[in-house]
Every structure is written in C-alpha cells, then in structure tokens.
C-alpha cells in the first residue's frame, strides 16, 4: 500500500525547510563575498574575511575567553548539577517537591533580568574579578540543563542496583562512581553538550558581566557589527557552525545522535 501525500503538505514542509536552511546558506555565501559590506548573493569569492578573523586580536582573545568560560562553566555546573540531580531523584519522596523547580529558575527568569541582578549582586556587591563573575554567571545559566538532563537519565535508573552494590561491600561514594555514573553516562554527555553550546552562545547574561579588557565572542561579534558591518561576522558565524557540526559529529560517532532527542 502506498500513501498519497497531500500536495499542501509538500509545500508546507518545503517552506519550513527553506526557512531553517536559508539563513545558513546566506551566511556561508556572505562570508565568501569579496565586498566590504554584508551582501547576498556574494560578489566575487574570497577567503580574506576568514584571514581577517585571525588577524584581529579581539576575535582571538574573546574566542579564547568564550571557550574557557564554556568549558569551565559547564564543568562547574555539572559538578553542582550531578549531585543535585542525584539527590533529587534518590530522595524524591523525602525532599519537598518545589526543590527541583529552584534549579530551573535561571531558565524561567528572563536572561536580561538574570544578568542584571548578577551584575548588581556579584560584580558590584562582591567586587569579584570579571572573569570569575562571568564564570559564576555562565555556570548558573547552564545549571538547569545539567540538572534536568542528568535527572532525566536518573529517572530511569533503578536505585536498587546501587543498593545491590552496597550490599556486596562497595562503599556509597565508590558505588556512585563505579555503578551509578557509568549508567547515566549518556545523560551527562548530553547535559555537557547542551550546557556548552548554551554558554558559548550566550549574549544577554555576558553583556552585563563583561568589563574592561574581557569580553566574549558573541559580544565581540555584536560590537564588530555595530562598527563595521563587513563579512567578517559572517565568517565567524561559519566557524562557530563548524564547531557545532564537529561536536555533533563526535556525538554521532560515539553515542548516535538519536540519544539527544530521547
């Protein structure tokens, strides 16, 4: 039996795909344009805008900061998020039900408000160094992903497995590393990727927390666009897309992409 596909569905699906993919095509095209302003379709082909990124120290510096923040912030959020998710699931009955909501607050509160209040409380209130403030901000920003995604993994984990290991003589902390962690590995990796990408892309929170001499790549892109509006921005975007593609390729190779959509 063959299914007849309604022509309207084909049209509708095509439109959706067009809007999803067109911006990517336009950005790649603009990045290669041999003009001093952003344009599409590209006029002439050149790679000089890509060279330009590496010649401009501001892009290099902020890119390094962004990756440092994304790695350290994500790591910090997992360090807090994994034990939190563990406790929320292990002691689900004993703990108050509102507690799990606390961990998603950074998503629920508008990012602008979140960034502003962090600036007021941490930067102004505690006078911490800028990088440290950014790190705290990013760790908090991505904490919900760590907690929620690891929680989802733990929700299907049977804690009697942990008790079995303990009854066989394995101390509780060791049991966590040898028995629990290997079984929620996929969740931890998924949480890492989501948190990492969120941190790398963040503008609103970073905007309030950056200061003299320290900025992040998305903010540098924003600043550059306001001043120059040349294809450099498009080429930076293409590079960021490549990073994402590389991450996805690693995921696909190790775990299979389907686990992200589970």
């Amino acid at each position, binding site marked *: 039996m063959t299914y007849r596909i309604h022509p309207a569905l084909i049209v509708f699906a095509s439109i959706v795909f067009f809007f999803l993919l067109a911006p990517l095509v336009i950005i790649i095209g603009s990045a290669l344009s041999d003009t001093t302003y952003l344009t599409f379709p590209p006029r002439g082909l050149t790679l000089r805008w890509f060279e330009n990124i590496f010649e401009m120290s501001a892009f290099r510096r902020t890119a390094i900061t962004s990756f440092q923040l994304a790695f350290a912030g994500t790591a910090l959020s997992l360090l807090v998020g994994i034990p939190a998710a563990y406790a929320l699931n292990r002691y689900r009955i*004993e703990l108050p039900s509102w507690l799990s909501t606390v961990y998603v607050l950074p998503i629920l509160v508008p990012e602008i408000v979140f960034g502003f209040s962090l600036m007021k409380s941490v930067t102004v209130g505690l006078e911490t160094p800028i990088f440290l403030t950014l790190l705290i901000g990013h760790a908090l920003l991505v904490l919900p992903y760590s907690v929620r995604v690891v929680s989802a993994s733990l929700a299907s984990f*049977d804690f*009697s*497995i942990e*008790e*079995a*290991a*303990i*009854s*066989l*003589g*394995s*101390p*509780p902390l060791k*049991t966590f590393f040898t*028995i629990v962690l*290997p*079984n929620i590995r996929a969740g931890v990796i998924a949480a890492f990727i989501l948190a990492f990408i969120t941190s790398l892309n963040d503008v609103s929170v970073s905007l309030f927390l950056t200061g003299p001499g320290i900025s992040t790549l998305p903010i540098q892109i924003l600043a550059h666009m306001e001043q120059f509006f040349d294809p450099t921005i498009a080429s930076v975007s293409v590079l960021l897309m490549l990073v994402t593609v590389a991450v996805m390729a690693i995921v696909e190779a190790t775990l299979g992409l389907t686990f992200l959509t589970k």
Partner: protein
Amino acid sequence: MTVSLDIESITAHYGHTEVLKDLSLSVKAGELVSLLGSSGCGKTTTLRLVAGFLPPTKGRIKLGDKDITRLPAHTRNIGLVFQNYALFPHLSVLENVAFGLKQRSVGSSERRKRASEMLDRVGLSPYAERLPAALSGGQKQRVALARALVIEPPLLMFDEPLSNLDAKLRIDMRVEIRKLQRANGTTSLYVTHDQEEAFSISDRVAIMNAGKIMQLDHPEVLYQRPANAFVARFVGFENLIAMKVSERDGDRVTAEVEGGSSIALSQDSLGPIPDEFVLAARADGLSVRRSGEGLPVTLGLRTYLGRAYQYQCQSTAGDLVANGPLSDPMEQGGSAVLAPHFEQCCILPVEA
C-alpha cells in the same frame, strides 16, 4: 559458617509514619524464615532494616554475636536478591558475579575462578560474557542469586525474588533457591506476598500485618492451627463463627450461635474450648447436608468446584461458605444444615 539473626523489638519510621512497631524475630542458624503479608505490612521494611538501608528508631539487630544495628550497609556482609534482579547493566554476567569478590580484594584470577564456579552451579556458564540485557528474567535472577552467594555471606535475604517471573518458572526457581540454600546452610530471610511460595520454601513463616508479626510458625501449623482471626482468614478459613458455650458434659460441649441455634462440639478433636470463642472453618470443613445435626442455613448460590459443589449460605450467624457432595446437588433457596468436620476446624480466641 552459620549464624543466627536476631531482631530485638525494632521500631521504624518513614518520616512521621510508624511502619514497624516493637517487632522481634529470630532466625536460627541455617534456617529459612519467610515474611509473608500484603503490601504495606512492613515485610520489606524489616528486610531493609537488616540490610542497613534504613536506620531503626529503636531496637537492636544481631547477626550471630555481633550487634549490626549501627553498622554501615556495605560492611554488613549480607547477600541480597532483589525483585527486579538489580544486575549491573554495564558489566558482563561474570563481572556481575565477581563484583562482591572485587570489593573483598580477591585477586583477579581467583575472582574469575570463583565467579565461574558459581555461574556453573546456577547453570549459566555459557552466558558469562554476555550483558544482563541479553538474558531472560529467570536467567537474570540466577545471576543475582550467584552474585549474592559467591561472597559466602552468613545471611541471605530475598525481596520478592520471584514476583517478576511467570508461574512455571516461579516454581522451578523456588525449588532451586531452596536447594542452594540447604546445600550452603545459609541463614535466610525471605520476603514474599505469595502464600504458596512462602509455605513451600520456608522452615518457618511469619505472617505480618500493619507492622506486626501476627504469627510465626511452621507452615503446617499456620495452615492447620492459626492462632488468631487475621491468620485464619489469611490462610483461607472463610468462615469465622462466634459462639458461646451453653452446656458442658466432660469433653462434650454444646455451643450456641447468635440467633439461637446450637451445635455439639467435642474437646477431644478441637482441644480446650473457652466459654466464648470463634470457630474457624474452611468451606471444606463445613459439610452441607439436607438434614441432621448441625447449623441450620438457607442455601444461596451454588458453584461447581470439580471435587465438590460450593454453596453460599445464610445463617443467623451471618453468611457462610460450605461444600456439599457431588452426588446430591441442592437447590438455591432450600434449607439445609452445616456439619463441621472437627479435625479441619479450629478454635480461636474472641478478639476485641
């Protein structure tokens, strides 16, 4: 080594809810005792207390001469078998069995050897390198059993180990568990809600209700001589009839049922009869007759059991269930008498 388990007046709470109240239980060295009861009766809580997963509010738990009440769970050296097997999904069957030995710092080759031997004993050697996910339910439970036995624990505990298996496998497995337990002489505590399973596998059974042990005895005694109304109902005494003695003549006693009819009983077969008591009888223990000595009733619905007819009966003492002969089917609405078979009945004290 075989040691006894002594639970001494344990009280336990979940939050503010009291789940066990002053419970005491002794399992003799080498004995298998079952905790039998419906869900929420406290049987699994008792097991978790002994395992060390839940601290008691009061009381003491002793394994042999050692007080283990405050010992951390991982130092108690107790073999546990769970309802859902609880195998380590990321480790092979052999690694699962060897896990406990690894915690005891047994060398890698010795570990392998002992784990393999144990797998051989439960008939799973060909599956040693597989992951648990590739096994059937029965095979998984065998691995769990091997994993608990290989550490040679002084105490084995089972938490509804057969509940997730199908009926035929359940019977095979319980025979196997009993054989292994007997062969090793390991003191065992077995939790189940299945009466047949508990009775068939145990030396003694504790029937539990609302955090208390209602009766602890050999299965034969529980089945034939329940000590109270709860246990009697639990083991299938459908009829509990309150009576008062109206006349005594040596061992012969005449007792009156609510509503006025009386019945002749004998202390010879029933044991001593107090002035007020409850006569407990299964449907099999009350025989339906058209006339003669017995408790007068009106017959209700008749059902066919294969070996007998069963009647729902109305008497002045309430609704009763009794069996009648296949040779003489009686009609609904007719009058009849119920004659107790004394050797199948028992006398219970009146409860407040």
